[in-house]
């Protein structure tokens, strides 16, 4: 009997497939708010990612593996971080930068030191702040699939309002559901949390990095809230601090970054203590970028810096543990 050829699937295929599956329910919300344009943008990004993968394989003389789908994931995550009014060419160029420069040039799957989505997003937001930092007001009817955005109404993002000292006029329920002007995929907090829980149960993400990330960011917001004048001790002005906490943590890609970006296997540390330190520093840096830089999705910038340090943290922790282990072994033996 002739043997069936076994199709060898790339090692990361299942993980990325799970992540991509999470994008489907997440996409439902921007479609509800803005029409079919988010889907069209996603499609453009997916096609670009596939073409860039093929191009990279062709130019850099390695075999093109169609089951290697991490580029597709990076492209979709990148689109989710952008507002729905972003032009198609911005999506295409930033996806190309993310896949070709941040991933293929460094050696492809598993070898890239930086998270390609973070690189693509940072490149896009620095190049085109006029498209990426302006958010369309939700529920104004479906956005046009093609053509200019001249008749679209825009609102200020939550971080922009808070940086000028104001309090955003968004109800808590709207914050949780994502009914406010923001990026496509970072708004629906409940959906993101549900996706995170599912990924956790399937052991696709660990709990240490996202938890420590959110903890550190939350502490930063508690100690230095941007709403009102919280000048007292840390246990005073509690309502002000809680209000600032809900706005900062539920907007601006904090939850999205915690669930989908932090635990990328090539860039995350492997050791438990290293993951804790990584998450804490990531949280602190993200909030610093939100406070002092003018970029709402600070987690991408912080990711770049922490990715550079992640293997150092791993090695330092292992070296420390070995040194302590030697002393302990000496005492026991």
């Amino acid at each position, binding site marked *: 009997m002739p043997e069936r050829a076994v199709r060898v699937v790339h090692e990361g295929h299942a993980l990325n497939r799970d992540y991509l599956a999470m994008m489907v329910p997440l996409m439902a919300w921007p479609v509800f708010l803005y029409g079919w344009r988010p889907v069209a943008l996603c499609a453009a990004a997916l096609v670009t990612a596939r073409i860039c993968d093929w191009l990279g394989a062709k130019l*850099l003389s390695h075999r093109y593996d169609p089951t290697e789908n991490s580029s597709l994931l990076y492209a979709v995550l990148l689109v989710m971080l952008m507002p729905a009014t972003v032009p198609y060419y911005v999506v295409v160029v930033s996806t190309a930068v993310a896949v070709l420069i941040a991933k293929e*040039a460094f*050696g492809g799957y598993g070898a890239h030191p930086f998270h390609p989505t973070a690189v693509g997003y940072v490149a896009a937001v620095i190049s085109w702040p006029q498209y990426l930092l302006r958010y369309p007001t939700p529920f104004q009817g479906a956005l046009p699939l093609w053509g200019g955005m001249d008749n679209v109404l825009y609102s200020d993002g939550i971080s922009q309002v808070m940086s000028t000292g104001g309090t955003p006029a968004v109800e808590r329920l709207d914050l949780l559901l994502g009914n406010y002007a923001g990026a496509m995929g970072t708004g629906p907090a409940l959906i993101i949390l549900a996706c995170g829980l599912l990924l956790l149960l399937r052991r696709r993400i660990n709990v240490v990095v996202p938890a420590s990330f959110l903890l550190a960011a939350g502490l930063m917001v508690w100690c230095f809230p941007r709403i009102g004048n919280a000048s007292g001790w840390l246990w005073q002005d509690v309502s002000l601090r809680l209000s600032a906490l809900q706005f900062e943590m539920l907007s601006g890609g904090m939850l999205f970054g915690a669930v989908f970006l932090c635990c990328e296997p090539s860039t995350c540390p492997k050791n438990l203590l290293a993951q804790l330190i990584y998450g804490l520093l990531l949280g602190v840096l993200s909030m610093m970028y939100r406070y002092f830089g003018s970029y709402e999705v600070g987690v991408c910038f912080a990711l*770049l810096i922490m990715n550079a340090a992640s*293997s150092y943290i791993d090695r330092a922790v292992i070296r420390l543990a070995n040194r302590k282990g030697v002393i302990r072994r000496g005492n026991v033996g």
Partner: protein
Amino acid sequence: MNIVVQTISTFFLYAVGAVFAQNAVFSRSLGVSRLVKMVGEASSDNLLFCGLLCLVQVISAPLAWMANRWILTPLSFRAAVRPLVLVLCSAAALGIVIVVCSALRRPSTSRVAQLLPMATFNCAVIGCLLVTTIQNFTLVQTLGFAVGSGAGYTLAVLAVTEGQRKLQARAVPAVFRGLPVTLLYIGILALAIYGFTGHTAAF
């Protein structure tokens, strides 16, 4: 008392600014050629080189300030002779370091003497002196900037050396191995640093 506090805060402000917002490597691309060569060779002299660079930077900065105040500013053709004067200032700093090192008679003096010319006559040192003299910094600002500039360069060396583990992996494509991938690495880190400042460093 107020003046002391103000002086110290100006010093720290300029030092921290020179380390992060106006980093010699990531914002101004000074000394990148030397950096790429150093991290490619992965020798243990990197820290010694950075230490010497910081030393020469800190010694030449006040010399440059004095030269700017008393020699360059009165001249109408100062822009033409500025590099000459600054090279002489760093040469003087080099001389001071050599004298101190040979007086100390450490066994590493020969290695120091080998590295010193490269640590003195490079873009990072002269670039920092150019910034402080063209923008007419005061003495405190100059000293703070010089300390920060040296520290920033050392930080850049450490960051890129750390990244070499991934950059020298076999997975990196052949055409990107070595210089191109290191430049991409520095570029991406520069993107992250740009996010903090939001504007390019003045040159």
